[in-house]
């Protein structure tokens, strides 16, 4: 029976090349877009290293200091690396400054949290540029604590992570990405481990090589990771609460995140500001992973609001982009049903009942969507590798994992089913006498 249906479907498709072409064009293109989107979402928000624990993550990218004053000066100052903002509300006359935190602030205040299991601190404000035989290299430098490697489970290709002793001794060791290894050593193999790198004025020994993350997040966009204590001495000595450090924490379970967020908010609100010049109040920004992502894109401070503002339009847009080709296909299918009235009439006259016709048509449509889907996948893979090899999206690279393929298969079946069901229903109800007249 299955083979019969299959052969029949293929014959029908071959008989109407124009319709088959139109349908396949729509299906393969739509599914390609869907696949690219899934892949993009998977790369940025998916369960990929180093974000395997993203459901237990709470991020504190910066703190805010405010002061009530009577000056009318308003100043906004958002350095990309440090989000420093100073402005004055016209009526309220409040001056605000946002920015990452100092080394002292994070190590003294953010290491005794009840709900946090692991602590990650990092400083991403530096670059390491240099020349190797006249060839330039430019590395993003991250100064990270040992806990960073617990919070972000980087995929280690070779070697191992930095540890507490490295922090204590300010050891001259680094973890680098495979890309950095290829740039500097020409290879990213085990033989690189233990070799020396001239970075700035000092020489460092390579401890480990990690796979470059798929996505472009300010939490781990570096090429070279140093022990946190190797950061510029001025950062370590600074008594200010603001500095160059971001923080992230892992809770024991995803359910504990709220508690940790509350704890952080409380800590910020009740921080003793007597030692801080100029400002009189503090707020600690904190966000879950998704909130943090939406915030970063929209520059909206309220995490859950940012989440709504970002994802509702995106979902609507995707729905529209999918609905159109789907409708198109439904319309085409409906016209095809009318064209085949006589065929259905004959089938019914010879004993096929409504559901037989229904199944046949849905099956045909699934065959069509499947062919379209395969073309779509091939197109998507070609496009993904093109985008990735040319780094068209910046650091973010698209992934194609088994998961993406699985989702995709579900989408194909859904697409075929949805676009076939209404026309098929109409077709199955065709009146025999009517269609044979």
């Amino acid at each position, binding site marked *: 029976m299955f083979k019969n249906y299959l052969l029949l479907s293929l014959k029908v498709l071959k008989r109407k090349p124009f319709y088959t072409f139109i349908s396949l064009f729509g299906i393969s293109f739509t599914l390609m877009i869907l696949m690219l989107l899934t892949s993009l979402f998977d790369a940025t928000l998916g369960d990929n290293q180093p974000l395997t624990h993203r459901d237990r993550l709470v991020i504190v990218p910066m703190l805010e200091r405010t002061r009530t004053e009577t000056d009318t000066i308003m100043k906004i100052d958002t350095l990309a690396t440090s989000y420093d903002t100073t402005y004055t509300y016209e009526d309220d006359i409040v001056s605000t400054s946002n920015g990452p935190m100092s080394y002292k602030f994070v190590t003294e205040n953010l290491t005794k949290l009840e709900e946090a299991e692991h602590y990650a601190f990092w400083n991403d404000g530096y670059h390491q540029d240099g020349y190797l035989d006249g060839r330039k290299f430019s590395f993003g430098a991250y100064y990270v604590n040992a806990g960073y490697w617990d919070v972000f489970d980087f995929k280690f290709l070779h070697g191992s992570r930095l540890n507490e002793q490295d922090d204590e001794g300010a050891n001259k060791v680094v973890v680098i990405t495979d890309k950095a290894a290829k740039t500097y050593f020409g290879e990213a193999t085990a033989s690189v481990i233990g070799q020396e790198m001239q970075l700035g004025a000092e020489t460092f020994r390579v401890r480990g090589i990690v796979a470059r993350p798929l996505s472009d997040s300010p939490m781990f966009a570096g090429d070279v990771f140093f022990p946190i204590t190797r950061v510029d001495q001025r950062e370590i000595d600074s008594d200010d609460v603001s500095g160059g450090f971001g923080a992230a924490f892992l809770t024991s379970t995803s359910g504990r995140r709220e508690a940790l967020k509350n704890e952080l908010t409380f800590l910020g609100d009740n921080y003793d500001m007597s030692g801080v010049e100029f400002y009189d109040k503090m707020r600690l920004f904190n966000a879950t992973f998704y909130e943090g992502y939406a915030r970063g894109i929209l520059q909206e401070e309220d995490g859950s609001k940012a989440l709504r503002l970002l994802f509702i339009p995106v979902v609507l847009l995707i729905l*529209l982009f999918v609905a159109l080709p789907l409708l198109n296909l439904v319309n085409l299918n409906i016209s095809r049903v009318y064209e085949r009235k006589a065929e259905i009439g004959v089938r019914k006259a010879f004993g096929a009942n409504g559901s037989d016709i229904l199944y046949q048509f849905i099956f045909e449509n699934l065959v069509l969507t499947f062919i379209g889907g395969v073309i779509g996948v091939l197109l998507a893979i070609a496009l993904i590798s093109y985008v990735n090899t040319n780094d068209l999206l910046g650091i973010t690279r698209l992934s194609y994992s088994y998961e993406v393929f699985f989702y995709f298969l579900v989408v194909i079946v859904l697409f075929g089913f949805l676009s076939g069901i209404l026309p098929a229903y109409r077709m199955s109800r065709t009146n025999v006498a009517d269609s044979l007249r």
Partner: protein
Amino acid sequence: MFRHLLKLMWNKRRANSMIFLEILLAFVVLFGVFAFVFYNMDRYRSPLGFNYEQTIGIRMDFDDELDSLAVIELQNRIHREMIAMPNVEAASFIGPVNPFGGNTWQTGTEVNGQQIRTQMLFADYRFGETAEVTMTDGHWFTEDDMKGKYIPTVVNAEFKRRYFPDVESIVDSVFDINGEHIVVGVTGDFKYKSNFAENFPLTFYPQMERLGEGDPYEMMVVRLRPNTMAETEEDIFNLLVDNTKNTEVVIWSMAKDRNKANRPVMIPMVILLVISGFLLINIALGLFGVLFTQINRRRAEIGLRKAMGATSGQVTLQFVLEILIVTVMALLLGAFFAVQVPLLELTPIPGKFFYYGILAAVTIIAVIVLLCSFLPSRQAAGMHPANVLHEE
């Protein structure tokens, strides 16, 4: 005739509902995409106002212990040595905000009872020449300007346009914006964040005040001879490491930075346009196919109408009008929803872009529908009635 068709379409409303829905959705998508693209293209149209080609940006780190005089001395030495290099055409120091760097400094203050909001850029007296800034009034500040009573400042054309539209010239006026400054020049349109940035009032400040606050200009903009970037970069790097005694020297290409700064708008725009383009092709093909069968299914009616004395032209017109009626209905409904966006001020984007978006979406859909209905209609209308009317 028209009323007749209206009636016919109304009576066939069930059959037409899917086409109606498809056109409505297509309109909504196109409307959104066009409004977004027009808005950004309008921003793109306003020029950057400075040269970024063959130019590199550099960030370095001076020793904090240096006093103002030592900093100026160091800067002058770096400038002298750099300008002596064969491939360097011009060089200048800039403050903490670099073009395309993604940073914004903005200040708001009340001047003569008027609230003035302006972005700030910090650059020395060589910047005007280095970045080839065009001036519409006055001049870029010179070394001599620093010796005057007031610290000089340069503003961009938008600053003048927005806050002093009726004044002949604001050169030599003194404003209290972060301290009293005298305006010595007005540039042409100037924006520095990206090509898609808003043309916003902008004031340029020389180093003097910030130097006093222990915040010297530690970035540079250097213009090179064409295509010498690769060979010159390492020499400049070494020159700066030697002079500052610090390896914290980062060099980037301004042209590449510009692309990077444009990317957050450019990528979504290209993606949206490509997807919309394919959607349109998809819809056009689909509509063509649907109308082709729908019209062919009505061969008997075509024959009948022709027997009743309709010409081929009238039959073609009829089918085109029929689809057009459905289209117009869908577009009207779509436009009704679309105008709510600017009317209710749902977004900060100015309303005119939404109206342009409606116009463009309507035009494109109308053209596609006309094409897709005209071809099958004409083909069917050319049929001989004899073949379809009599069953033997």
